[in-house]
Each structure stands twice: as structure tokens, then as C-alpha cells.
């Protein structure tokens, strides 16, 4: 399973203190759009419900590998969505189905509130649902 980006994020977060993690996620949010999220896709059917900000995630499959891109109108959430979608793109169905709360926790490491962690788990579940795994 190729999860280099995931490992990079997890290692970076591990080295930082709480305040720095917070800024790291904001920076990710500010620089997330090297692949711009197409505006046409900011439609209700791509919207995740139950968030304090709006989150859109789209899913494609290439050669049996699942890819995601995400967007949010809040920078902090965009940082989290970006980390989640990049971390867990390029996986097969079986690999994606094997991603659990433990993986998500490593992208969080106490820098954010429990509610945000619940939000990240909801993102994972949403991605798994989009990919029908």
C-alpha cells in the first residue's frame, strides 16, 4: 500500500507542538489548491452534511485506484480535507476499506478538538461510502 503522503503528514505532525500543528494545518489549508477543486462540483450532491463549514468531496477511480479531492469554505477544514483526501488517494478498494480511526488519529495528534476528530472520521466514512468499499 503506497501511503507516502500519509506518512509524511503523520511524521510532520509528530514532530510539532500543539500550536505548531495548528499552524501547519492552516498552512495546508492555504496551499491546498495545487489541484483546484472545480467550481461546478461545489454542488449539493457533493456536499458532506453535518459540518459547521461546508465540505465537498469528489471521487474518481483510475486503474482500480480510488482518488479524492476535497474543498471547504473554512481554511482550517480545508487543511484537514486536503490531508485526508491526499493521504488516502491512490488506494485499492481493499486498502481503502482497511483505513480506520487509528490512521486518522495520527493526522490529528491532539492539536484539534475531539469534535474536529469526529469530523475527520466522518470524512473518512464519507470517502469510503463514495468509493463504495
Amino acid at each position, binding site marked *: 500500500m503506497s501511503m507516502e503522503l500519509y506518512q509524511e503528514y503523520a511524521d510532520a505532525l509528530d514532530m510539532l507542538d500543539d500550536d505548531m500543528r495548528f499552524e501547519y494545518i492552516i498552512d495546508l489549508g492555504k496551499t491546498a489548491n495545487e489541484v483546484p477543486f472545480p467550481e461546478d462540483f461545489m454542488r449539493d450532491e457533493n456536499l458532506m452534511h453535518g459540518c*459547521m463549514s461546508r465540505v465537498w468531496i469528489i471521487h474518481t477511480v483510475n486503474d482500480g485506484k480510488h482518488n479524492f479531492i476535497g474543498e471547504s469554505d*473554512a481554511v482550517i477544514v480545508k487543511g484537514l480535507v486536503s490531508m485526508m483526501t491526499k493521504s488516502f488517494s491512490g488506494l485499492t478498494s481493499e486498502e481503502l476499506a482497511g483505513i480506520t480511526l487509528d490512521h486518522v488519529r495520527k493526522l490529528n495528534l491532539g492539536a484539534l478538538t475531539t469534535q474536529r476528530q469526529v469530523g475527520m472520521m466522518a470524512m473518512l466514512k464519507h470517502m469510503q461510502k463514495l468509493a463504495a468499499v
Partner: protein
Amino acid sequence: MTSNLAYDVQKIRADFPILSREVYGKPLVFLDSAASAQKPRQVISAMVDVMENDYANVHRGAHYLSQVATDHFESAREKVARFINATEDEVIFTRGGTESMNLVASCFGQAHLKGGDQVVTSVMEHHANIVPWQMLEGSKGIEVLFVPVDERGVLDMAAFEALLGPKVKLVSLAHVSNVLGTVNPVEDIIALAHSKGIPVMLDGCQGITHGSVDVKALDVDFYVFSGHKLYGPSGIGVLYGKKGLLNSMPPYQGGGDMIETVTLEGTTFKEAPHRFEAGTPAIVEAIGLGAAIDYVSEVGMDAIAAHETLLLEQAMAKLSAIEGMQLIGTAPNKVSVLSFNVEGIHPLDIATVLDRQGVAVRVGQHCAEPLIKAMGYEATVRASFGMYNTLEEVDKLVAGVEKAKKMFGA
């Protein structure tokens, strides 16, 4: 700006144990009392005391403890009644404001609403004063009418009057908006509705905390509030109703303590309030609410309101000096519930930066999605000030917003 020298906010703060804690290594600045207020030691002690010394089920046992617990519980009801100038048989204990409103929708609905009847509410309401009526649209075929608000967040009274046609059987409006802090002209609303023979329910969940409420002077038919916003515990709420109206309604739930006699052929029900209090009530919580009422009464509701107004005025003046600031809700008559956004920054980003500074605010739609949309937003930041907040905390809010502006480059 007048200062309120007699109001000793530091003495009040010392009564609230949680206010001395830190979050993220910074002193807690709690500006989310409109969602749920913190509790003074007097409330906590009253609840612990009854559980440690005087606890038993109420209205049942012949034994000593049951009588003591019943005395405490009924004395809490008396305190509520005195606090709003009602009589005890007009005060029903519920689980909270939401249950109080659902009780009226369900029981008033069963007794007095039929298909084609109308209920008037407004765009400004908390979902708890919208959804129960929409459920009756589905089940009974009633129609719900909404009074619009203007760009300041003020109810359109001309539109309200125009809605009061012959099919309207109940008006149900907020006393104070939980998002904007707008104080509605409830005397005028009640007088207008009564002139057409229509009863009025007020959602007082915010109104009860920011000033004195006299249900008799208002001549309101139902008044609803929760304990936890009034510095009391969660799990307890109040429904005030005029006695005749309450007894015209069927029970909400069936069970123990609400019946006169039960035979296998049928049951007769007690009068209000017990008719609406099936099962073991929230005994400890009711006693906690009684202690909260003692506490705020001793400080004085008018003194609390004056202090909160000072905080609101300072916050509005300082926040509006920030470039891009959008104060949402600028009604001339407004309490210390303050919604705002900063142009170009998502409210969740602002709230997250504030949180890291120890400043607790709410963000989102505040259970009032139609209102947020009507005001032209997706979400707002909401700071709400309570009896224990200080001018220094207002400054921390302002500094936090300025920090968010720097971090997000707007």
C-alpha cells in the same frame, strides 16, 4: 457609557468554579452562555446536598425522606412561580425548552387545532419553535405562517398583524432571538393577538436570562424556558401556562403521578401541573434550578441585565472598528447575544483561532437555519455574554478576532 459600580463581577466570578480553569494553557473566556451557562457553586452544592442527604422519589412515599424530597421539589416549583409571577399550579417541569414547546404543540394541538388552522411563528425562531409546528402540518394538516424580519433582525410587525386572520389559532414567537439578541415587542404582540382572541406562546429560553419576566403583566398564555441557560442544570425546563388553558389540554405522556384513578376500563387525570408530569421527574435538577433562581434573584435580574448591556455595547463598539466586520443583528432593543462575521474569513476559522486563545464562542447556524439564511449568511460566530463576563474578556474577544484576521490575511 455608564458604569455599574454596585455590580461586583469578581465576587460573582468567584462563585463559578469552572471560570478559574484554563484551556490550552490560557484562562477560559466563556462567551457561550446563550448555548448553556456555567453553574455557580450554590447550584452545584444544592444538587449534591439533596443527593447526599435528602434524596427519595417525590409525591409517593409515606416515609420521611420522600416527604423531605417532595418539599424541596415543590419549593423549587414555588421559586419558579415567584420568579415569573405565576402560581405553582401553572408551572410545569419539563426536560427543557424544547420539550416545553413540543408539549404545547402536541397537547394544545390535540385539543385546539384541526386541519386548515394556522399557527403563526417567525423566521427568527430556534428550530424548536419551527419543527414541532411543521410536524403538525404533516400529521394534522395545519398551516404554519412565518413573520419576516428586516435587515436589522427586527420582526416586521405590519406583516405580523396582516397574518392574524380568522384561521390563526396560536401565535408562537421568541421573546429574544438566540442568534441576534433582538428583544421582540412582546407586549404589542400579545395585545394584537389577544385583540383577535388568539393565545400567545413565548419562547423565553433567552428572554428569561436577560431581564425580569412577569407573565401576569405580559398576560402571556404560555411561556417556555430551560434551566441550563439560567445558570441551573440541564435536563430541567419550565412550561408556564394559564391554568384554564392547561386544563383544557390532554396529558402529554401517560404514566405514574399524573393520574387520579386507573382502572382497567379507563383513567382519570390530575389537573395541571401533575397532569403533564408523568413518571419520576428530574428531582435533583429541579432543586438545582430553584437554587439558580435564588442566586440570580439575589444579584438582581435588572442588575445582571445592566451589566450585560455594558459588555454588549463595548463589544459592538470595539468589534465594529475592525475592518470587514459584519455585526449581524442591530435591533435597537437587543440583549448580549452578538453574532458577527468578518468579510473574507470563514466563521469556523475565526472561532477556532478564538478557541486557541481560550475564548469559547459558538459558530454555525445556532439551530436557526432560516434566520441565518434570511440575514444572508451560511453561518456566523456568536459571542454571548452572561452575568460573569468582564470588560477584559470583551477585549480578549476583540484581540482574538484581530489575530484571526492576521492569520487568514483578510
